[in-house]
């Protein structure tokens, strides 16, 4: 800790200034070729014509986006109406990701606060405990969740044993199961940024509020929450964004009725529907949504940093 503080955190030095280009070149090359260029090609593919066995024909076309937003009847000759199928799937994804985010906030905020108010010695241990599950394979975690929630699973067994319920509750294959799965997948992402914000919070402010006869809940809402808001927003975004495009939780826990964007996209490439341009277009819509959220967030963070400093 002390060493980090002494060097002033993120101060840059220029020891390897001349070698800079060569040091960065491999990363630039690999990420340009394997991350940025593919997204550009995906954008091009979304404007091509589909090949029926998967793949594309190199003919420019708006068909993919047209199919996404408009319904032109079975033979494509009717006046275009709004096509609700895919918008509904996107809307459901937003709703599910939002519900998972709120669940994570309800559990994650008190947890983050509790950890941040422990003694400095045990805090890293707590943070470590919260992060371990994140590093366990997401597929295995989702399968474990399904195993736990099954009709004849341990959770229902336990609840019936305690006498709280008489017959098993159906959780798997409902919207709620998907929300639980998403919440479980990304909960650590909610805790960590809020923890970082509360750790930096000056508790003298709370004391001052208490001295001025603020109740505890007033102090929480009026003093603490505004101060740690950037952390809360960061946590919400870190849960919401990956939830939005998730595939495993809706696929394994949701069943066919609870289709989300991830499954819609996957089906275009892996399933028999095989419409690559449409899959590319749906991916572009998802990517655009995510980038807009991230840009608003970045602007907001920059503003609040300016206001602070």
């Amino acid at each position, binding site marked *: 800790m002390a060493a980090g503080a002494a060097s002033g955190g993120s101060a840059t030095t220029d020891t390897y*200034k001349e070698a*800079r280009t060569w040091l960065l070149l491999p990363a630039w090359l690999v990420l340009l070729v*394997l991350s940025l260029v593919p997204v550009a090609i995906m954008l091009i593919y979304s404007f091509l014509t589909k090949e029926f066995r998967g793949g594309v024909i190199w003919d420019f076309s708006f068909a993919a986006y047209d199919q996404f937003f408009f319904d032109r009847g079975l033979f494509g000759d009717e006046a275009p109406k709004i096509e609700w199928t895919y918008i509904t799937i996107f809307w459901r994804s937003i709703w599910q990701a939002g519900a998972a985010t709120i669940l994570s906030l309800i559990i994650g905020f008190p947890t983050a606060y509790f950890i941040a108010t422990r003694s400095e010695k045990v805090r890293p241990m707590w943070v470590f405990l919260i992060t371990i599950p994140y590093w366990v394979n997401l*597929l295995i975690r989702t399968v474990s969740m399904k*195993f736990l929630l099954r009709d004849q699973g341990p959770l229902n067994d336990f609840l019936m044993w305690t006498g709280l319920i008489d017959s098993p509750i159906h959780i798997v294959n409902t919207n709620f199961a998907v929300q639980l799965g998403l919440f479980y997948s990304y909960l650590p992402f909610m805790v960590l940024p809020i923890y970082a914000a509360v750790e930096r919070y000056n508790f003298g402010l709370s004391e001052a509020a208490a001295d001025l006869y603020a109740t505890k809940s007033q102090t929480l809402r009026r003093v603490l929450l505004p101060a740690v808001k950037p952390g809360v927003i960061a946590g919400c975004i870190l849960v919401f964004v990956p939830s939005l495009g998730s595939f495993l939780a809706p696929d394994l826990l949701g069943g066919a009725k609870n289709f989300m964007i991830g499954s819609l996209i996957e089906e275009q490439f892996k399933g028999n529907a095989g419409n690559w341009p449409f899959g590319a277009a749906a991916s572009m819509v998802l990517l655009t949504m995510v980038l807009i959220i991230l840009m608003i967030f970045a602007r907001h963070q920059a503003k609040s940093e300016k206001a602070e400093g």
Partner: protein
Amino acid sequence: MADAKFDIKTYRGFRAMTLLCLVVLYAPLIVVTIYSFNASKSITVWEGLSFRWYIDVFNGPESAKFKLAAWNSFVIAIVAATVATTIATLAATGMVRGGKFKLRTLSFGLISLPLMVPEIVTAVATLIFFNAIGFDRGLLTILLAHTAFCIPFAYLPISARMQGIEDTYEQAAMDLYATKRQAFTKILLPLMMPGIISGYLLAFIVSLDDFIITNFVKGAGVETLPTAIFGAVKQGIKPNIMAISTMLLALSIVMVTISYFVSKTDETK
């Protein structure tokens, strides 16, 4: 300190919520671990402790499939993590020790790109890219995709570590006529080791665990552990899957724990 002043820091119920959080995070993992030692063929009935399903994983009818998938997974994870960590170490040196330069923000954006783009979009884009350049899908495509995807995971702990190391050590070495190369390999690199090991282990786990990208870019018939597990789970959760899952789970936890203690030991110095 806090107790003396009315204890304004504590809120009632927050401790309970924290415990609930831990229960939620760990209960599914613990339950699956316990049931992987179940002697019964059914996943619902408990018939006592047994290593039966662990033996089944290594010698049972499906063992050949899972062994091949595990081999693929480990080879890909080792190679991808090694390449990604090397690239990330060089890049971190350029970013943290390269002074101010115009492309700095852009470079950071590029390095963190795989973290910002939803994983399924990365998967689609990578698949389309290989298709467009006519590259046959197989093990190599998985390896390339994983290498790119792992770079930010290796980069973050490495650059965080490097920011904490003052450049006075390297300056001192160079005052004593060490070349830049020597200052890098003999001074900076050893000091950065905890960060590099941490980064390597995280990249390794990310590659080993990846399902979505692998599922898109793998060739027909090529399986890694996660895609093999996913295929099996689609037919229903079976006890041998729980045994494999438990082993993978244990491996991830061991590696993250090592990574945690490696980065911690050095801080106390």
